[in-house]
Structures are given as C-alpha cells and as structure tokens.
C-alpha cells in the first residue's frame, strides 16, 4: 500500500515505473468512488424529485378546481359532474372508513396468525401455512373483487346483514336495506387483502426477536402467554406497527376490488350497510370520460388529496414507531 503514496517519494530513479501506474490507478479509483457516490446520491434523491414533480404536475392540473372550490372541496359532499359542482367529502370519508374497518378486522387476525406461526405452531405446520399466507398476498385485486361480487356480497346480503340487522339493528351502524355491496363488503374484502401482508411481515419481526428474550422471561416464571406478551410482542412492537401500517397503506390505495364492492355512491352514511365511495375508486371510474378542465381538475385534486393523506398517514406512523421505540423495556443483547 505504501507504493500508492509513492508519487512524492518516487521522484528518485529507484522506482521508475510503479508510481505513475499507481497514481493512475489511484486517480481512477478516486474517480470510481466519486462516480459511485454521485450515482447513489442521484438514486437516493430520485424519489424526492419524483414525489415533488408529481405533486407539482398534479397541483397544476388541479388548479381550476383548487381555485374554484377552495376548502369547500373537502368539506362539501355534492358531486355532480353535469352541473360541475364538486365536493370530495364522501370519497375522503369512504377511504378512511373502509381502511379503518379493514384494519379493525385484519389486525387481530393477522397478528394472531403471525404469533401462532412464529411461536406456537408445530414445526410441520409452519412451512405450508406460511407459504399459503404469502401466496394470498400475490392474488391480483381484480380476482378478490370478482370473488367479492359473486360470493361475498350475496353471502352478506342473505345471511350476515339480516342477522346483524336483527340483533344489533338499534345501532346506526347496522341500519338500512341489505344490498350486499357497500361499506361492510369493502371493509371485509380489504381486510382479507391486507391480512397476508400483516401476517407475513409480523411473522418475520417475531422471528427476529432473540431467543434470550423468551428464555429470560420463562426463567422468571412467566407463562407462555406472558412470555409472548412481555418478551416478544413488546420487543418487536415497532416492527409490528410497521407491518400494520404497510397493510393500511395498501388499504388506502386499493382500487379495483373496492370499486367492485363498495357500491360507488358518493354519500356520507354512518351505516355500514349503505353504499359508499373511495378516492381511488372515483378516479378509476370517472377519469377516462372527464372532458372539461374543471371536472378533470377535480379528479386530479382527489389524487393530490390521496397523496397528501398517504403522506400524513406515513408521517403519523413514523411518529408512532418513534414514540414506541423510546419505551423503557427495549432490551439489548
């Protein structure tokens, strides 16, 4: 290695050929390092530029709608393409409600399955079940949608909704005629779609929890449940929250299956039986035939809002992971 620094020392006749070659190599290496750094820097900045560029282009295209409706766009619910009156509240409401409903159903199921697969299941059961769960994540959403239309919605209409209406009909959540399709169907299909994500990621997180954690808890006399709760779940909680948020991200942006099942009615209704609408669905439905600038602008503004909503949810998620990660019980190896 000393030869590399030989340019200043190698002025003498004793080292006639090596120093220039080494100098060239060094220069080339320095050039290579710099090039590598610049390329990765460009790659690292590309997402930022892309998001900023997308936001700018969308804001520009949404300008007619932004200028015309202002804040009323997100606080009113009249969506009338003929009269060119646009209020996006029902879509925002539908996106949030269907995604939260999906989380409510999917988190217990997904986490439960992950705990079983990582902690409790017999060795022979783990690989096939894990494989099946991961395969569920690969099914295209249009297939879920078709299954939803032809199996889930009729089942909801003939069995689940009448039963819920009879027993819990006093709650505003379960009132109205049973159509099958609607907010409940959309939430259910989203839950089914995000369970595999939550399960697969949570399982990896739980497997990464060190054995010593469990052994320590067991040595202190903890039962199996206590070991899982105190030593495993708590240790991996920031990762588990990440898994749940990955599912939420997918639910917020899911388009096809939801469009096929939510009923596509732009109304804010507190009944889960009633049809609703989501932001992604209205864009998918109406974009191709939107002819006027204002109409197109309104649809693009919804896309912009979806982008903002996704960023906000991800920001909240970061905050949650950060605040949880500071907790006192994180044990280091």
């Amino acid at each position, binding site marked *: 290695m000393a030869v590399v620094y030989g340019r200043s020392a190698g002025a003498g006749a004793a080292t006639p050929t090596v120093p220039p070659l080494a100098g060239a190599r060094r220069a080339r290496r320095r050039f290579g390092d710099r090039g590598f750094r610049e390329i990765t820097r460009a790659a690292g900045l590309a997402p930022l530029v892309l998001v900023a560029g997308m936001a700018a282009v969308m804001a520009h295209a949404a300008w007619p709608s932004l200028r015309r409706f202002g804040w009323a766009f997100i606080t009113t619910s009249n969506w009338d393409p*003929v009269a060119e009156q646009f209020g996006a509240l029902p879509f925002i409401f539908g996106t949030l409600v269907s995604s939260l409903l999906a989380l409510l159903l999917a988190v217990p199921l997904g986490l439960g399955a992950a705990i079983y697969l990582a902690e409790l299941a017999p060795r022979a059961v783990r690989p096939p079940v894990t494989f099946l769960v991961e395969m569920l994540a690969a099914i295209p959403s249009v297939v879920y949608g078709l299954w939803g*239309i*032809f199996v889930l919605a009729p089942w909801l209409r003939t069995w689940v909704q009448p039963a819920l209406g009879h027993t819990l009909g006093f709650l505003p959540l379960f009132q109205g005629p049973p159509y099958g399709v609607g907010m409940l169907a959309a939430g259910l299909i989203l839950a089914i779609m995000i369970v595999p994500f939550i399960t697969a990621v949570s399982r990896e997180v739980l497997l990464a929890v060190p054995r010593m954690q469990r052994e320590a808890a067991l040595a202190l006399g903890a039962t199996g449940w206590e070991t899982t709760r105190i030593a495993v779940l708590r240790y991996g909680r920031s990762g588990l929250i990440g898994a749940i948020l990955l599912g939420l991200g997918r639910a917020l942006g899911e388009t096809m299956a939801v469009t096929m099942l939510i009923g596509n009615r732009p109304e804010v209704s507190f009944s889960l039986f009633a049809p609703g609408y989501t932001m992604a669905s209205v864009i998918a*439905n109406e974009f*191709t035939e939107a002819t006027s600038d204002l109409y197109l602008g309104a649809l693009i503004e919804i896309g912009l809002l979806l982008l903002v909503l996704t960023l906000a949810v991800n920001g909240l998620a970061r905050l949650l992971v950060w605040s949880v990660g500071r907790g006192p019980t994180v044990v280091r190896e």
Partner: protein
Amino acid sequence: MMTSRRVVVGLLTAVVVAWSCGVGPATAQLLINGAGATFPYPIYSKWFDEYAKISRSVNFNYQSIGSGGGIRQITARTVDFGATDGPMTDEQLKAAPGELFHVPTVIGAVVATYNLPGNPKLRFTPDIFGKITKWNDARIKDVNPGANLPDQPIVVVHRSDGSGTTYIWVDYLAKVNSEWEQKVGRGTSVKWPVGLGGKGNEGVAGQIKNTPGALGYVELAYAIKNNLPAASIRNKAGRFVEPTIGSTTAAAAGAAAEMPPDFRVSLTNAPGPDVYPIASFTWLLVYREQPDEVKGKAIVGFLWWASHDGQKYAADLLYAPLPAPVVKQIEAKLRQVVYQGRPLLAAQ
C-alpha cells in the same frame, strides 16, 4: 474496465441495429393513429383488420381510452382521428384548432334489464323511470297483465364509470321526464338520485344478477351475448318495441329526415312506429382540413369503406348498421374533407 467498455459498445451496437431493423419496414407503411370510445372498439378493430387486407399500405392503431380522452386527443391533434359515444358540445368544438366533423359509424342501443322471479318478459312505459319505487306499482302492472310482480322495492343499479352507455340512457330519461332533465341532466357520469354503481357492463350485470328486485341498464350487445332479460319500451308512436338490431337501425332511419348537417343528433325517443327509443350513433371525429394529404386520403377512404362495405360486419358483432339515407348523408360529408382546399375523396 476494458470488458465493461466493450459491453457498453456492444449494447449500443445492438440497440442501433435493432432500431434500424424496426424502423426499416415501418416507413413503407402508413400508420394512422386514433383514440377514443370503448363502446365501438370491437367493430373498429374488426374494420381495421378487414381494411388492412384491402388496402395493404395503411395500418390503423386505435386506443380505446374512452370518449373523453378521444375528444381531448383529437383537440390536441395528438391523434389523426378521435372517436366518441356522445357528441361534442359547442364549447368543445370551439376549443378545437380546426373544424371537426362527426361521422356516424354504427348505432348502439341500451336496454333495461332486471332480476325478478322467473325473469318474465316485461313491458315498460316511459313514465315509470324515476317515478316508481316498487315492482308491483300499478304503472307496471297495467301494461304487464299476467306477469308475477312482487311487492318488492326496486334496487336501481347504474354504471359507476363514466360511459357512453350512461349518456344514452340518461339522455332518454331527460327526454321523457322533465324533472330528470332539470335535476340531473345528461352526461357520461351524472349525480344519481338513487341506486348502486357497478363498474362496466359486467359490473352492472353482476350486481343485478345477485340482487333480487334489481333494475339497471346495459348495452344491447352485452345483454344479447349474456342472455339477460330486456324490457320492451313504449316508443313515441305508442308501441312497445323490443330492443333488437333491426329496431335500433330503425331509430336512425326515423331520425334521418330531420338530421342536422353535422350529425350531432340524439336518436333517443326517435319518431317512427318500429323504433326502439334508447339508441345512439357512435362517431369518429376528423378535421375538415386535413394537415397531411396522404393520411387524409387514407382516413377518408377508410370512412367511405366503413360506411358502405364495412357495415356488413356490424350485425355479427351486435351493432346496428347505418340506414341507407344516413349513408347518403355521410357520403356528402366525406366529400367536404379537404387538404389545402382540394377534396380528398377519390371518385367513387
């Protein structure tokens, strides 16, 4: 380093060779780009195939991105022709950089379909739409004696995606129901006062099939192919007419007498005894002044062929062909398409 440089040079050579190979033959052929309506896409692609056999030097590329996209692209001149299921508005025509012609190609119809026990053949009068809420309403019962109509709410199913099918349906509703015209109006998407939205013909049909008491609308072609029940509708002349290819063509024949010169005419509720009242032209959009002589000639030649010989393919694909008087009117229109003032249509 040397090896990677050699790889780069090799890749570049490969790209250049591939590019020149790909471009070589294409320059010999004329490529005409179009975009727009999805509804006539099956017949258009059939036409492009058949026409390529006759006129080997012309190739068509058609993107079925929706009528809205077709109108935007022809207005921006990014395509050589557009296609639309609903006529352009006066405002849209004014926004275009040149005079645009609407050329009708085929006629489509929209049918009312439903889900009732046994799916009886029903007859509807125009006054029921937007007015009744139950299947056993006297206004349905009176014209359907003997049909088993349950005491059940009508669940309305409509298209959730913007579509020419919706435009034709609500255009008819606006003509027969003045309240609809004032409160809802016409458009490819409208603010529906009631009902559930299904995506595409298949979404609407699936929803109807799974919902007892549902009532919705789909394209005639889709209803025939999938054996869906379709109601006869009482037309302007007071007769109940079943939706068929024949009764759809009759709608255009009925409207031919009062055809405006720009063909922007609605065929819904058209006069005539055998007319099915929920029908519409679909149009190709071309500039009167063509910017390119060779392309312009090819487009006009194709339109002539499509409105004459091409019509025989329509019925097989469940579109209604143009009636003879309308074809005569189209001939006159095609003679007006020019390049620098000279008509492009070769003597036929």
